[in-house]
Protein backbone atom coordinates (compact mmCIF):
# COMPACT_ATOMS: atom_id res chain seq x y z
CA UNK A 1 0.00 0.00 0.00
CA UNK A 2 2.90 2.35 0.71
CA UNK A 3 4.12 2.18 -2.87
CA UNK A 4 0.68 3.00 -4.16
CA UNK A 5 0.50 6.04 -1.89
CA UNK A 6 3.91 7.27 -3.02
CA UNK A 7 2.94 6.82 -6.66
CA UNK A 8 -0.18 8.87 -6.10
CA UNK A 9 1.78 11.68 -4.48
CA UNK A 10 4.15 11.74 -7.48
CA UNK A 11 1.20 11.85 -9.85
CA UNK A 12 -0.45 14.65 -7.89
CA UNK A 13 2.66 16.76 -8.29
CA UNK A 14 2.99 15.81 -11.95
CA UNK A 15 -0.64 16.68 -12.53
CA UNK A 16 -0.34 20.09 -10.90
CA UNK A 17 2.86 20.84 -12.87
CA UNK A 18 1.56 19.64 -16.22
CA UNK A 19 -1.65 21.56 -15.75
CA UNK A 20 0.48 24.65 -15.11
CA UNK A 21 2.23 24.00 -18.41
CA UNK A 22 -1.03 23.39 -20.25
CA UNK A 23 -2.59 26.51 -18.80
CA UNK A 24 0.55 28.51 -19.54
CA UNK A 25 0.47 27.52 -23.20
CA UNK A 26 -3.25 28.16 -23.34
CA UNK A 27 -2.70 31.56 -21.72
CA UNK A 28 -0.02 32.39 -24.22
CA UNK A 29 -2.27 31.43 -27.14
CA UNK A 30 -5.19 33.40 -25.75
CA UNK A 31 -2.92 36.38 -25.03
CA UNK A 32 -1.42 36.47 -28.51
CA UNK A 33 -4.81 35.99 -30.03
CA UNK A 34 -6.59 38.74 -28.15
CA UNK A 35 -3.83 41.24 -27.38
CA UNK A 36 -1.55 40.82 -30.33
CA UNK A 37 2.02 39.63 -30.58
CA UNK A 38 3.10 41.17 -27.29
CA UNK A 39 0.21 39.57 -25.48
CA UNK A 40 2.01 36.26 -25.02
CA UNK A 41 3.81 37.12 -21.79
CA UNK A 42 0.86 38.81 -20.04
CA UNK A 43 -1.26 35.88 -21.21
CA UNK A 44 1.10 33.41 -19.58
CA UNK A 45 1.21 35.55 -16.43
CA UNK A 46 -2.54 35.65 -16.22
CA UNK A 47 -2.81 31.92 -16.82
CA UNK A 48 -0.28 31.30 -14.05
CA UNK A 49 -2.28 33.47 -11.65
CA UNK A 50 -5.37 31.44 -12.58
CA UNK A 51 -3.36 28.26 -12.03
CA UNK A 52 -2.16 29.43 -8.61
CA UNK A 53 -5.65 30.38 -7.50
CA UNK A 54 -7.02 27.07 -8.77
CA UNK A 55 -4.36 24.97 -7.10
CA UNK A 56 -4.78 26.78 -3.78
CA UNK A 57 -8.55 26.48 -4.10
CA UNK A 58 -8.29 22.79 -4.85
CA UNK A 59 -6.00 22.31 -1.87
CA UNK A 60 -7.90 24.32 0.72
CA UNK A 61 -11.52 24.27 -0.46
CA UNK A 62 -11.69 21.47 -3.03
CA UNK A 63 -13.48 18.98 -0.79
CA UNK A 64 -16.03 21.56 0.34
CA UNK A 65 -16.65 22.59 -3.27
CA UNK A 66 -17.12 18.97 -4.33
CA UNK A 67 -19.50 18.30 -1.43
CA UNK A 68 -21.58 21.41 -1.97
CA UNK A 69 -21.74 20.92 -5.75
CA UNK A 70 -23.09 17.43 -5.03
CA UNK A 71 -25.56 18.80 -2.45
CA UNK A 72 -24.20 16.70 0.42
CA UNK A 73 -25.29 17.12 4.05
CA UNK A 74 -23.26 16.06 7.07
CA UNK A 75 -24.85 13.39 9.26
CA UNK A 76 -24.11 12.30 12.82
CA UNK A 77 -24.40 8.90 14.40
CA UNK A 78 -27.89 9.57 15.83
CA UNK A 79 -29.21 10.33 12.34
CA UNK A 80 -28.16 7.16 10.55
CA UNK A 81 -26.52 4.76 13.00
CA UNK A 82 -26.09 1.92 10.51
CA UNK A 83 -24.32 4.03 7.89
CA UNK A 84 -22.17 5.55 10.60
CA UNK A 85 -21.23 2.13 11.98
CA UNK A 86 -20.36 0.80 8.54
CA UNK A 87 -18.05 3.76 7.91
CA UNK A 88 -16.44 3.22 11.30
CA UNK A 89 -15.96 -0.49 10.59
CA UNK A 90 -14.24 0.23 7.28
CA UNK A 91 -12.07 2.92 8.88
CA UNK A 92 -10.73 0.21 11.17
CA UNK A 93 -10.32 -2.31 8.36
CA UNK A 94 -8.33 0.23 6.34
CA UNK A 95 -6.31 1.26 9.40
CA UNK A 96 -7.00 4.94 8.83
CA UNK A 97 -6.03 7.24 11.68
CA UNK A 98 -9.36 9.06 11.74
CA UNK A 99 -12.89 8.28 10.64
CA UNK A 100 -13.97 10.31 7.60
CA UNK A 101 -16.92 12.68 7.96
CA UNK A 102 -20.15 11.13 6.70
CA UNK A 103 -22.40 12.96 4.23
CA UNK A 104 -25.70 12.11 2.61
CA UNK A 105 -27.05 13.46 -0.68
CA UNK A 106 -30.82 13.53 -1.12
CA UNK A 107 -31.05 11.85 -4.52
CA UNK A 108 -32.92 8.68 -5.52
CA UNK A 109 -30.07 7.58 -7.84
CA UNK A 110 -27.73 5.28 -5.89
CA UNK A 111 -24.12 6.47 -5.92
CA UNK A 112 -21.24 7.42 -3.63
CA UNK A 113 -17.91 9.24 -3.58
CA UNK A 114 -15.07 10.16 -1.26
CA UNK A 115 -13.19 13.42 -1.18
CA UNK A 116 -10.71 15.34 0.91
CA UNK A 117 -7.16 16.54 1.04
CA UNK A 118 -5.75 13.74 3.16
CA UNK A 119 -6.95 10.80 5.18
CA UNK A 120 -7.23 12.90 8.34
CA UNK A 121 -9.93 15.20 6.97
CA UNK A 122 -11.61 13.09 4.33
CA UNK A 123 -15.33 12.75 3.72
CA UNK A 124 -17.51 10.00 2.35
CA UNK A 125 -20.80 10.93 0.70
CA UNK A 126 -23.58 8.53 -0.26
CA UNK A 127 -26.96 9.23 -1.81
CA UNK A 128 -30.23 8.47 -0.07
CA UNK A 129 -31.00 6.20 -3.03
CA UNK A 130 -27.90 4.14 -2.21
CA UNK A 131 -28.99 3.70 1.40
CA UNK A 132 -32.45 2.67 0.28
CA UNK A 133 -31.32 0.20 -2.39
CA UNK A 134 -28.45 -1.63 -0.72
CA UNK A 135 -28.38 -4.04 2.20
CA UNK A 136 -25.73 -3.82 4.89
CA UNK A 137 -23.14 -6.02 3.16
CA UNK A 138 -23.49 -4.12 -0.10
CA UNK A 139 -23.24 -0.78 1.68
CA UNK A 140 -20.13 -2.07 3.41
CA UNK A 141 -18.66 -2.98 0.02
CA UNK A 142 -19.26 0.51 -1.36
CA UNK A 143 -17.91 2.23 1.75
CA UNK A 144 -14.84 -0.07 1.62
CA UNK A 145 -14.24 0.97 -2.01
CA UNK A 146 -14.41 4.65 -1.01
CA UNK A 147 -12.21 4.01 2.02
CA UNK A 148 -9.63 2.50 -0.34
CA UNK A 149 -9.67 5.73 -2.40
CA UNK A 150 -9.02 7.65 0.81
CA UNK A 151 -6.20 5.41 2.02
CA UNK A 152 -4.51 5.26 -1.38
CA UNK A 153 -4.59 9.08 -1.52
CA UNK A 154 -6.66 8.85 -4.70
CA UNK A 155 -8.95 11.51 -3.28
CA UNK A 156 -6.21 14.11 -3.25
CA UNK A 157 -5.31 13.35 -6.83
CA UNK A 158 -8.95 13.39 -7.90
CA UNK A 159 -9.46 16.69 -6.13
CA UNK A 160 -6.70 18.32 -8.15
CA UNK A 161 -7.77 16.59 -11.32
CA UNK A 162 -11.38 17.63 -10.84
CA UNK A 163 -10.73 21.28 -10.08
CA UNK A 164 -8.01 21.64 -12.74
CA UNK A 165 -9.94 19.84 -15.46
CA UNK A 166 -12.98 21.95 -14.66
CA UNK A 167 -11.01 25.19 -14.89
CA UNK A 168 -9.25 24.25 -18.14
CA UNK A 169 -12.55 23.40 -19.75
CA UNK A 170 -14.09 26.70 -18.63
CA UNK A 171 -11.08 28.71 -19.86
CA UNK A 172 -10.90 27.00 -23.23
CA UNK A 173 -14.63 27.27 -23.78
CA UNK A 174 -14.51 30.94 -22.85
CA UNK A 175 -11.66 31.50 -25.31
CA UNK A 176 -13.46 29.77 -28.17
CA UNK A 177 -16.64 31.69 -27.50
CA UNK A 178 -14.62 34.94 -27.51
CA UNK A 179 -13.27 34.10 -30.96
CA UNK A 180 -16.64 33.28 -32.39
CA UNK A 181 -17.89 36.63 -31.13
CA UNK A 182 -15.13 38.28 -33.14
CA UNK A 183 -12.90 39.27 -30.24
CA UNK A 184 -9.79 37.99 -31.96
CA UNK A 185 -7.36 40.54 -33.26
CA UNK A 186 -5.82 38.51 -36.04
CA UNK A 187 -7.91 40.32 -38.66
CA UNK A 188 -7.09 43.74 -37.26
CA UNK A 189 -5.57 46.37 -39.57
CA UNK A 190 -2.82 47.30 -37.10
CA UNK A 191 -1.42 43.78 -36.81
CA UNK A 192 -1.55 42.88 -40.47
CA UNK A 193 -1.37 39.30 -41.66
CA UNK A 194 2.24 39.04 -42.67
CA UNK A 195 3.97 38.45 -39.35
CA UNK A 196 2.69 34.97 -38.85
CA UNK A 197 -0.20 35.86 -36.54
CA UNK A 198 -2.43 33.78 -38.79
CA UNK A 199 -0.47 30.72 -37.80
CA UNK A 200 -0.66 31.79 -34.18
CA UNK A 201 -4.43 32.11 -34.46
CA UNK A 202 -4.72 28.63 -35.93
CA UNK A 203 -2.45 27.31 -33.20
CA UNK A 204 -4.63 29.05 -30.62
CA UNK A 205 -7.78 27.49 -31.99
CA UNK A 206 -6.17 24.05 -32.09
CA UNK A 207 -4.99 24.49 -28.53
CA UNK A 208 -8.36 25.63 -27.33
CA UNK A 209 -9.97 22.60 -28.90
CA UNK A 210 -7.27 20.27 -27.61
CA UNK A 211 -7.10 21.60 -24.05
CA UNK A 212 -10.38 20.12 -22.82
CA UNK A 213 -9.53 16.81 -24.45
CA UNK A 214 -6.12 16.92 -22.80
CA UNK A 215 -7.72 17.74 -19.48
CA UNK A 216 -10.05 14.81 -19.94
CA UNK A 217 -7.10 12.60 -20.82
CA UNK A 218 -5.25 13.59 -17.66
CA UNK A 219 -8.38 12.71 -15.78
CA UNK A 220 -8.73 9.44 -17.63
CA UNK A 221 -5.14 8.48 -16.97
CA UNK A 222 -5.49 9.01 -13.25
CA UNK A 223 -8.87 7.51 -12.64
CA UNK A 224 -9.46 4.27 -14.46
CA UNK A 225 -6.90 1.88 -13.01
CA UNK A 226 -7.65 3.42 -9.64
CA UNK A 227 -11.14 1.98 -9.72
CA UNK A 228 -9.80 -1.56 -10.07
CA UNK A 229 -7.33 -0.92 -7.27
CA UNK A 230 -10.04 0.48 -5.02
CA UNK A 231 -12.20 -2.56 -5.78
CA UNK A 232 -9.26 -4.80 -4.86
CA UNK A 233 -8.47 -3.01 -1.59
CA UNK A 234 -12.16 -2.67 -0.80
CA UNK A 235 -12.65 -6.41 -1.16
CA UNK A 236 -9.61 -7.03 1.03
CA UNK A 237 -11.07 -4.77 3.74
CA UNK A 238 -14.42 -6.53 3.90
CA UNK A 239 -13.10 -9.99 2.95
CA UNK A 240 -16.43 -10.28 1.17
CA UNK A 241 -16.12 -9.40 -2.56
CA UNK A 242 -19.74 -10.39 -3.20
CA UNK A 243 -20.99 -7.37 -1.22
CA UNK A 244 -19.30 -4.88 -3.55
CA UNK A 245 -20.08 -6.95 -6.65
CA UNK A 246 -23.79 -7.05 -5.96
CA UNK A 247 -23.78 -3.35 -4.97
CA UNK A 248 -22.14 -2.38 -8.28
CA UNK A 249 -24.75 -4.39 -10.12
CA UNK A 250 -27.63 -2.74 -8.29
CA UNK A 251 -26.20 0.74 -8.73
CA UNK A 252 -25.64 0.31 -12.45
CA UNK A 253 -29.13 -1.09 -12.98
CA UNK A 254 -30.97 1.63 -11.10
CA UNK A 255 -33.07 3.66 -13.53
CA UNK A 256 -32.61 7.06 -11.86
CA UNK A 257 -29.95 9.55 -12.85
CA UNK A 258 -27.98 11.58 -10.38
CA UNK A 259 -28.95 15.25 -10.28
CA UNK A 260 -25.87 16.98 -8.84
CA UNK A 261 -23.14 15.51 -11.05
CA UNK A 262 -21.19 17.42 -13.69
CA UNK A 263 -18.55 16.23 -16.13
CA UNK A 264 -15.88 17.64 -13.81
CA UNK A 265 -17.10 15.71 -10.77
CA UNK A 266 -18.32 12.54 -12.51
CA UNK A 267 -15.07 10.54 -12.23
CA UNK A 268 -15.20 10.79 -8.43
CA UNK A 269 -18.25 8.62 -8.12
CA UNK A 270 -18.13 4.84 -7.69
CA UNK A 271 -20.13 4.50 -10.90
CA UNK A 272 -20.14 7.15 -13.61
CA UNK A 273 -23.34 9.11 -12.89
CA UNK A 274 -23.55 10.66 -16.36
CA UNK A 275 -24.19 7.42 -18.22
CA UNK A 276 -27.62 6.00 -18.77
CA UNK A 277 -28.25 2.36 -18.04
CA UNK A 278 -27.95 1.39 -21.68
CA UNK A 279 -24.60 3.10 -22.12
CA UNK A 280 -22.73 1.43 -19.31
CA UNK A 281 -20.23 -0.28 -21.58
CA UNK A 282 -17.00 1.64 -21.34
CA UNK A 283 -15.32 3.14 -24.38
CA UNK A 284 -11.79 4.44 -24.77
CA UNK A 285 -12.49 7.82 -23.17
CA UNK A 286 -14.46 6.47 -20.26
CA UNK A 287 -13.19 7.38 -16.81
CA UNK A 288 -14.67 4.22 -15.34
CA UNK A 289 -13.95 0.61 -16.30
CA UNK A 290 -16.93 -1.43 -17.49
CA UNK A 291 -19.17 -2.48 -14.62
CA UNK A 292 -19.74 -6.09 -15.66
CA UNK A 293 -16.00 -6.56 -15.86
CA UNK A 294 -15.55 -5.17 -12.35
CA UNK A 295 -18.35 -7.43 -11.13
CA UNK A 296 -16.96 -10.48 -12.90
CA UNK A 297 -13.49 -9.98 -11.41
CA UNK A 298 -14.95 -9.64 -7.91
CA UNK A 299 -17.17 -12.67 -8.36
CA UNK A 300 -14.39 -14.98 -9.51
CA UNK A 301 -12.14 -14.18 -6.56
CA UNK A 302 -11.19 -17.35 -4.70
CA UNK A 303 -10.64 -15.56 -1.39
CA UNK A 304 -10.78 -12.10 0.11
CA UNK A 305 -7.16 -10.99 -0.34
CA UNK A 306 -5.35 -8.71 -2.78
CA UNK A 307 -3.58 -11.65 -4.42
CA UNK A 308 -6.96 -13.24 -5.12
CA UNK A 309 -8.08 -10.08 -6.87
CA UNK A 310 -4.87 -9.98 -8.90
CA UNK A 311 -5.34 -13.58 -10.06
CA UNK A 312 -8.97 -13.01 -10.86
CA UNK A 313 -8.16 -9.79 -12.73
CA UNK A 314 -5.62 -11.57 -14.92
CA UNK A 315 -8.10 -14.30 -15.68
CA UNK A 316 -11.02 -12.05 -16.56
CA UNK A 317 -9.15 -9.38 -18.54
CA UNK A 318 -6.55 -11.75 -19.98
CA UNK A 319 -4.11 -8.90 -19.55
CA UNK A 320 -1.32 -7.85 -17.21
CA UNK A 321 -1.85 -7.38 -13.53
CA UNK A 322 -3.22 -4.33 -11.80
CA UNK A 323 -1.76 -4.45 -8.30
CA UNK A 324 1.84 -3.30 -7.72
CA UNK A 325 4.21 -6.15 -6.82
CA UNK A 326 5.30 -4.69 -3.48
CA UNK A 327 1.67 -4.49 -2.48
CA UNK A 328 1.18 -8.17 -3.17
CA UNK A 329 3.84 -9.13 -0.66
CA UNK A 330 2.33 -7.00 2.10
CA UNK A 331 0.08 -8.15 4.92
CA UNK A 332 -3.22 -7.63 3.16
CA UNK A 333 -2.18 -9.90 0.31
CA UNK A 334 -0.97 -12.59 2.64
CA UNK A 335 -4.55 -12.89 3.78
CA UNK A 336 -5.15 -14.64 0.48
CA UNK A 337 -5.05 -17.95 2.26
CA UNK A 338 -7.97 -16.90 4.37
CA UNK A 339 -11.28 -17.71 2.81
CA UNK A 340 -13.64 -14.87 2.05
CA UNK A 341 -15.95 -14.34 4.96
CA UNK A 342 -19.61 -15.23 4.87
CA UNK A 343 -22.36 -12.65 4.68
CA UNK A 344 -22.17 -10.68 7.88
CA UNK A 345 -24.07 -11.43 11.02
CA UNK A 346 -26.18 -9.03 12.96
CA UNK A 347 -29.55 -7.41 12.96
CA UNK A 348 -30.71 -5.73 9.80
CA UNK A 349 -33.42 -3.16 9.66
CA UNK A 350 -35.86 -4.10 6.93
CA UNK A 351 -35.70 -2.21 3.65
CA UNK A 352 -38.73 -0.22 4.76
CA UNK A 353 -37.27 0.73 8.15
CA UNK A 354 -34.08 1.67 6.41
CA UNK A 355 -35.87 3.90 3.92
CA UNK A 356 -37.83 5.60 6.70
CA UNK A 357 -34.67 6.27 8.68
CA UNK A 358 -33.04 7.91 5.68
CA UNK A 359 -36.14 9.96 4.84
CA UNK A 360 -36.59 11.01 8.47
CA UNK A 361 -33.19 12.62 8.43
CA UNK A 362 -34.11 14.79 5.47
CA UNK A 363 -37.58 15.58 6.86
CA UNK A 364 -35.98 16.76 10.09
CA UNK A 365 -33.39 18.77 8.20
CA UNK A 366 -36.01 20.42 6.00
CA UNK A 367 -38.22 21.31 8.99
CA UNK A 368 -41.16 18.99 8.27
CA UNK A 369 -43.72 18.73 11.05
CA UNK A 370 -44.61 15.20 12.15
CA UNK A 371 -48.22 14.36 13.09
CA UNK A 372 -49.25 10.93 14.32
CA UNK A 373 -52.84 10.27 13.39
CA UNK A 374 -54.92 8.07 15.69
CA UNK A 375 -55.55 5.62 12.84
CA UNK A 376 -51.89 4.64 12.64
CA UNK A 377 -50.93 6.90 9.76
CA UNK A 378 -48.11 9.40 10.14
CA UNK A 379 -48.40 12.72 8.37
CA UNK A 380 -45.47 14.97 7.58
CA UNK A 381 -46.18 18.58 6.75
CA UNK A 382 -43.64 20.74 4.90
CA UNK A 383 -42.84 24.12 6.49
CA UNK A 384 -44.24 25.98 3.48
CA UNK A 385 -47.54 24.05 3.39
CA UNK A 386 -50.24 26.42 2.13
CA UNK A 387 -53.40 24.98 3.66
CA UNK A 388 -54.19 25.56 7.39
CA UNK A 389 -55.25 21.93 7.89
CA UNK A 390 -54.10 18.57 6.57
CA UNK A 391 -56.44 15.64 6.11
CA UNK A 392 -55.48 12.10 6.96
CA UNK A 393 -56.35 10.05 3.88
CA UNK A 394 -57.19 6.92 5.88
CA UNK A 395 -59.61 8.14 8.53
CA UNK A 396 -60.45 11.53 7.14
CA UNK A 397 -59.44 13.38 10.32
CA UNK A 398 -58.57 17.00 9.73
CA UNK A 399 -55.41 17.99 11.57
CA UNK A 400 -55.31 21.65 12.45
CA UNK A 401 -51.90 23.05 11.63
CA UNK A 402 -52.20 26.43 13.32
Amino acid at each position, binding site marked *: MWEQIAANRRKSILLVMSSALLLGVLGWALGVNFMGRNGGVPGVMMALVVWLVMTLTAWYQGDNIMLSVAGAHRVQKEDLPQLFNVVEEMTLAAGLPKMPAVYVIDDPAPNAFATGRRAENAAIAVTSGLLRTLDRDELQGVVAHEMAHIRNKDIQLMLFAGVLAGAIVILAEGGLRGMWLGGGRSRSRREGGSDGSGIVAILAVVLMILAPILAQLIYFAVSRKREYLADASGASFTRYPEGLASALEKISRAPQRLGGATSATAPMYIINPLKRTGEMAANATSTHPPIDERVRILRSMAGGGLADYERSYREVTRGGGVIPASELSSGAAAAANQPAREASAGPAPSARENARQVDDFFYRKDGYRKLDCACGTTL*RIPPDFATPA*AKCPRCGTLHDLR
Partner: protein
Amino acid sequence: MKCPACRVPMYVAEYQQIELDLCGRCAGVWFDSGELALLLGDQRPLDAAAALTDEATRSCPLCDKPMAKVNIGPGRRVLVDRCPRGCGLWFDGAEVAALAADLDAAAWGLPAAVHGFIREMFPAKGGK
Protein backbone atom coordinates in the same frame (compact mmCIF):
# COMPACT_ATOMS: atom_id res chain seq x y z
CA MET B 1 -42.03 18.43 -3.58
CA LYS B 2 -44.72 20.36 -5.41
CA CYS B 3 -47.99 19.01 -6.76
CA PRO B 4 -47.65 18.58 -10.54
CA ALA B 5 -51.23 19.81 -10.99
CA CYS B 6 -51.55 22.73 -8.53
CA ARG B 7 -47.86 23.53 -7.93
CA VAL B 8 -48.30 23.83 -4.17
CA PRO B 9 -46.15 21.95 -1.63
CA MET B 10 -47.45 18.46 -0.94
CA TYR B 11 -47.57 16.70 2.41
CA VAL B 12 -46.61 13.12 3.17
CA ALA B 13 -48.67 10.28 4.60
CA GLU B 14 -46.91 7.18 5.88
CA TYR B 15 -48.69 3.93 6.63
CA GLN B 16 -47.04 0.57 7.22
CA GLN B 17 -43.74 2.31 6.55
CA ILE B 18 -44.74 3.20 3.00
CA GLU B 19 -45.06 6.86 2.09
CA LEU B 20 -47.29 8.66 -0.36
CA ASP B 21 -47.13 12.33 -1.26
CA LEU B 22 -50.51 14.04 -1.20
CA CYS B 23 -51.77 17.35 -2.47
CA GLY B 24 -53.92 19.20 0.07
CA ARG B 25 -55.71 21.09 -2.68
CA CYS B 26 -56.56 18.61 -5.47
CA ALA B 27 -56.25 15.34 -3.46
CA GLY B 28 -53.85 13.99 -6.08
CA VAL B 29 -51.33 11.34 -5.05
CA TRP B 30 -47.69 10.80 -6.00
CA PHE B 31 -46.51 7.20 -5.69
CA ASP B 32 -42.73 7.40 -5.75
CA SER B 33 -40.92 4.56 -7.50
CA GLY B 34 -38.72 4.09 -4.44
CA GLU B 35 -41.85 3.50 -2.36
CA LEU B 36 -43.30 1.23 -5.05
CA ALA B 37 -40.12 -0.81 -4.91
CA LEU B 38 -40.40 -1.05 -1.11
CA LEU B 39 -43.99 -2.20 -1.43
CA LEU B 40 -43.30 -4.77 -4.13
CA GLY B 41 -39.93 -5.84 -2.82
CA ASP B 42 -38.10 -5.21 -6.09
CA GLN B 43 -37.46 -2.56 -8.72
CA ARG B 44 -39.60 -3.73 -11.60
CA PRO B 45 -41.25 -0.92 -13.52
CA LEU B 46 -45.00 -0.92 -14.01
CA ASP B 47 -46.03 -1.77 -17.52
CA ALA B 48 -49.14 -0.21 -18.88
CA ALA B 49 -50.33 0.86 -22.31
CA ALA B 50 -49.71 4.43 -23.37
CA ALA B 51 -52.87 6.36 -24.10
CA LEU B 52 -53.89 9.04 -26.52
CA THR B 53 -55.74 11.73 -24.68
CA ASP B 54 -56.32 15.44 -24.53
CA GLU B 55 -55.90 15.57 -20.78
CA ALA B 56 -53.31 18.19 -19.81
CA THR B 57 -49.72 16.93 -19.74
CA ARG B 58 -48.10 17.15 -16.32
CA SER B 59 -44.43 17.35 -15.50
CA CYS B 60 -42.75 14.93 -13.15
CA PRO B 61 -42.46 16.62 -9.74
CA LEU B 62 -38.94 15.25 -9.33
CA CYS B 63 -37.17 15.47 -12.68
CA ASP B 64 -39.53 17.90 -14.45
CA LYS B 65 -39.82 15.75 -17.60
CA PRO B 66 -43.30 15.63 -19.15
CA MET B 67 -45.06 12.52 -17.90
CA ALA B 68 -46.72 9.94 -20.15
CA LYS B 69 -50.41 9.14 -19.81
CA VAL B 70 -51.02 5.45 -19.30
CA ASN B 71 -54.28 3.55 -19.13
CA ILE B 72 -55.02 1.37 -16.18
CA GLY B 73 -58.22 -0.05 -14.82
CA PRO B 74 -61.19 -1.93 -16.21
CA GLY B 75 -62.23 -0.74 -19.63
CA ARG B 76 -58.99 1.24 -19.68
CA ARG B 77 -60.80 4.33 -18.60
CA VAL B 78 -58.52 5.58 -15.83
CA LEU B 79 -55.45 7.50 -16.88
CA VAL B 80 -52.47 7.89 -14.65
CA ASP B 81 -49.30 9.86 -15.36
CA ARG B 82 -46.01 8.03 -15.41
CA CYS B 83 -42.59 9.67 -15.31
CA PRO B 84 -40.56 8.60 -18.39
CA ARG B 85 -37.44 8.40 -16.23
CA GLY B 86 -39.14 6.11 -13.75
CA CYS B 87 -39.42 8.55 -10.84
CA GLY B 88 -42.97 7.44 -10.04
CA LEU B 89 -46.70 7.55 -10.77
CA TRP B 90 -49.19 10.38 -10.41
CA PHE B 91 -52.88 9.75 -9.68
CA ASP B 92 -55.37 12.62 -9.90
CA GLY B 93 -57.75 12.83 -6.95
CA ALA B 94 -60.65 11.29 -8.86
CA GLU B 95 -58.46 8.46 -10.14
CA VAL B 96 -57.45 7.47 -6.63
CA ALA B 97 -61.08 7.47 -5.53
CA ALA B 98 -62.09 5.27 -8.48
CA LEU B 99 -59.22 2.91 -7.79
CA ALA B 100 -59.96 2.68 -4.07
CA ALA B 101 -63.69 2.15 -4.58
CA ASP B 102 -63.22 -0.90 -6.81
CA LEU B 103 -62.84 -4.18 -4.97
CA ASP B 104 -61.63 -6.16 -7.96
CA ALA B 105 -57.85 -5.85 -8.02
CA ALA B 106 -57.40 -8.17 -10.97
CA ALA B 107 -59.24 -5.85 -13.33
CA TRP B 108 -56.70 -3.10 -12.74
CA GLY B 109 -53.37 -3.12 -14.48
CA LEU B 110 -51.64 -2.78 -11.14
CA PRO B 111 -49.90 -5.34 -8.93
CA ALA B 112 -52.26 -6.57 -6.22
CA ALA B 113 -50.01 -5.16 -3.48
CA VAL B 114 -50.23 -1.66 -4.95
CA HIS B 115 -53.97 -1.84 -5.37
CA GLY B 116 -54.33 -3.24 -1.86
CA PHE B 117 -52.20 -0.50 -0.38
CA ILE B 118 -54.19 2.22 -2.10
CA ARG B 119 -57.42 0.68 -0.86
CA GLU B 120 -55.95 0.57 2.64
CA MET B 121 -54.75 4.15 2.50
CA PHE B 122 -57.93 5.56 0.94
CA PRO B 123 -60.87 3.63 2.34
CA ALA B 124 -63.90 4.31 0.12
CA LYS B 125 -65.76 7.30 1.42
CA GLY B 126 -69.36 7.89 0.56
CA GLY B 127 -69.99 10.83 -1.71
CA LYS B 128 -66.38 11.19 -2.88
